[in-house]
């Protein structure tokens, strides 16, 4: 809302959200204009409609949504806002699409600090601008204390696909190579280390990042040889490859030695009894690519700052069981399953 004329300035430094900021009154308009529009500022939001309109060319579009409930809201390498923008952009670009617009729905717990909300909104603005994407519509709800966990953000993204492009998990073919864009488990370990009490200190930051540009160079190098891309978020690499296996009806055979994992991530996982291939990533992708373009795509990835640790970790194989199998660095073999339920720290 433009109207300086009908509401005063928000005390971003000291103020807190209360129920009046979600009630459709002047306080809400003040919050939206004083904080969100300022952070996201663009021509669509400035029109203050309950929806935003934009031009598209004829063709194929994609739409994706994700809810962000990360705790803590601020973590090494980002916050819930940058995460919400990166994550949704990534789901758009995993289809090979160019991201265009985002929407953002905020559910805020009464008592939340404006200053924190401001920082988060600013991060969203920065993340969106960095990807050439605009947050063109949004919504703000405030719930009573104890009915949310500070702040939840749901972002939805839309993008356009190049002509005829159709990346989908069911496109994987026997013999395809499995590429990952970098080391696994950084985000999950960064979050776990802040969630654990101060006893655990890990020198690791979340990998949260938008992969639009990495994907662009991959597409340039691999073209239609890129069959599937997916970001291994919740459930990690294991969940992502199991999903693709079940959607494509294939199995995968991976080389454990080829899978990049940072020493600090490996050590944290050993300490807590976890496995890095089950841990979440927020700035990594898995690509299933035709064997004839795999090397070119991998080279392109390695030349990109977000793919410098990229690796070819295995291949798609015929398998009625749709198993993801791993040749261990030790010389044995095992199945990499979905996680059963949450990954819990173990004592044994």
């Amino acid at each position, binding site marked *: 809302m433009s109207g300086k004329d009908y509401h005063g300035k928000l005390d971003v430094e000291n103020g807190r959200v209360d129920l009046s900021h979600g009630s459709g009154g002047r306080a809400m308009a003040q919050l939206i204009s004083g904080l969100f529009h300022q952070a996201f500022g663009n021509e669509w939001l400035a029109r203050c409609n309950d929806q935003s309109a934009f031009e598209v060319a004829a063709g194929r579009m994609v739409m994706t949504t994700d809810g962000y409930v990360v705790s803590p809201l601020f973590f090494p390498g980002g916050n819930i806002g940058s995460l919400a923008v990166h994550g949704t952009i990534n789901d758009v670009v995993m289809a090979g699409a160019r991201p265009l617009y985002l929407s953002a729905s905020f559910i805020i717990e009464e008592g939340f600090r404006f200053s924190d909300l401001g920082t988060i909104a600013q991060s969203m603005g920065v993340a969106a601008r960095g990807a050439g994407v605009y947050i063109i519509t949004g919504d703000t709800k405030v719930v009573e204390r104890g009915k949310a966990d500070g702040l939840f953000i749901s972002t939805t993204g839309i993008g356009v696909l190049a002509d005829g492009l159709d990346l989908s998990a069911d496109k994987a073919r026997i013999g395809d190579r499995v590429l990952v864009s970098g080391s696994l488990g950084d985000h999950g370990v960064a979050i776990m280390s802040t969630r*654990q*009490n101060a*006893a*655990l200190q890990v020198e690791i930051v979340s990998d949260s990042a938008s992969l639009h540009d990495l994907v662009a160079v991959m597409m340039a190098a691999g073209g239609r040889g890129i069959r599937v891309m997916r970001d291994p978020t919740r459930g990690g690499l294991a969940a992502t490859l199991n999903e693709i296996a079940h959607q494509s009806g294939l199995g995968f055979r991976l080389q454990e030695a080829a899978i990049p994992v940072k*020493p600090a991530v*490996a*050590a944290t996982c*050993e300490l*807590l*009894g976890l496995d890095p291939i089950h841990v979440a990533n927020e700035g990594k992708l898995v690509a299933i690519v035709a064997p004839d373009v795999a090397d070119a795509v991998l080279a392109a990835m390695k030349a990109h700052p977000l793919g410098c640790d990229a690796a070819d970790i295995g291949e798609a194989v015929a398998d009625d*069981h749709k*198993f993801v*199998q791993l*040749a*261990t*660095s*030790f*010389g*044995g*073999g*095992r*199945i990499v*399953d979905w996680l*059963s*339920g949450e990954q*819990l*720290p*173990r*004592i*044994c």
Partner: protein
Amino acid sequence: MKYADEFRDKTIALGLARAIGAEAGPRRAYRFMEFCGGHTHAISRYGLEELLPANVRMIHGPGCPVCVLPASRIDMAIRLVERPEVTLCVYGDLMRAPGSQGQSLMRAKALGADIRMVYSTLDAIRLAEQVPSREVVFFAIGFETTTPPTAVMVRIAEKKRLRGLSVFCNHVLTPSAMHSILENPKMRNIGGVAIDGFVGPAHVSTIIGTQPYEPLVEQFGKPIVIAGFEPLDVMQAILMLVRQVNEGRYEVENQYSRAVTRQGNRRAKDEVSQVFELREQFEWRGLGLVPNSGLKLKRAYAGFDAEARFAMHELRVADNPACECCAILRGAKRPVDCKLFGTVCTPETPIGSCMVSSEGACAAYWTYGRVRDDQVRRLS
């Protein structure tokens, strides 16, 4: 990671595998039980069974504290945490352990119980200090390795006068369980195949040493090799067992000399004996009541004993009759021998505790072993 990576070397492993194959020869079969779930985990995680010759077979023992915890103790904990004043602290692996009606602490939490996952008893102390008005109960499980940290917690709580902290004690003893397995005549020879020796858990022995196994070896004539948990440690232990069998010896040998001695950790043993004493008997899932196999708090620490403090009634719960955990934990059957395995009983819907812990024999088979078993099934 120092003292870990060196013991995961693939080249040595392949050589060791050939050495085992050569020494085991084709003359006879070897059946070794790894008592401990940690060894089961290592065997699966590194794919060791693929490296072993066909005539050396590993049997997964009862050495996972979650697996052996009877449903009744979960039921008791759930009943306890229904009290509004109680906050229950648990190690993460316990969250999904099934009670008698398929309930779990995870579900109790979803229904509103105040349950906190902790990494350490130190976390429970911190919590009790933070919320002095709550009854913070630590759900203590584990073998000799995990018992000293509980003892230290109780002694710190006493020193700091943390009146809100108490322990629901479920600590159990490894040698007693091994004894129970060996003294059952049926168990010694199942389907005509004897257990030829044990891989013993090194981490337990960092505390108790190797000595407590000496009487077992004497009494039952089975070799025991105390082994570390890196894959080369396990393979070396298997080679040592093959050699003992081949040479007709039955001794306690210590593969893990880098951290295990004959006497163990005196200070840790002192802490434990200050705080805990033997229970006359304790129920193990799969083994039933085992004499002298569990610990409880001494009378001097009764104020920290949740069972006394909250007058917790002992419960008795019959195991699910279809579940073969009992035989599997004793090494008498394999997961695929259970009719429920992989159909009714999966990691999402565990029936027996062998499916609950990721180290439980059934869960490990589900996660890591299905290919081979499936091939076995199709061949048979």
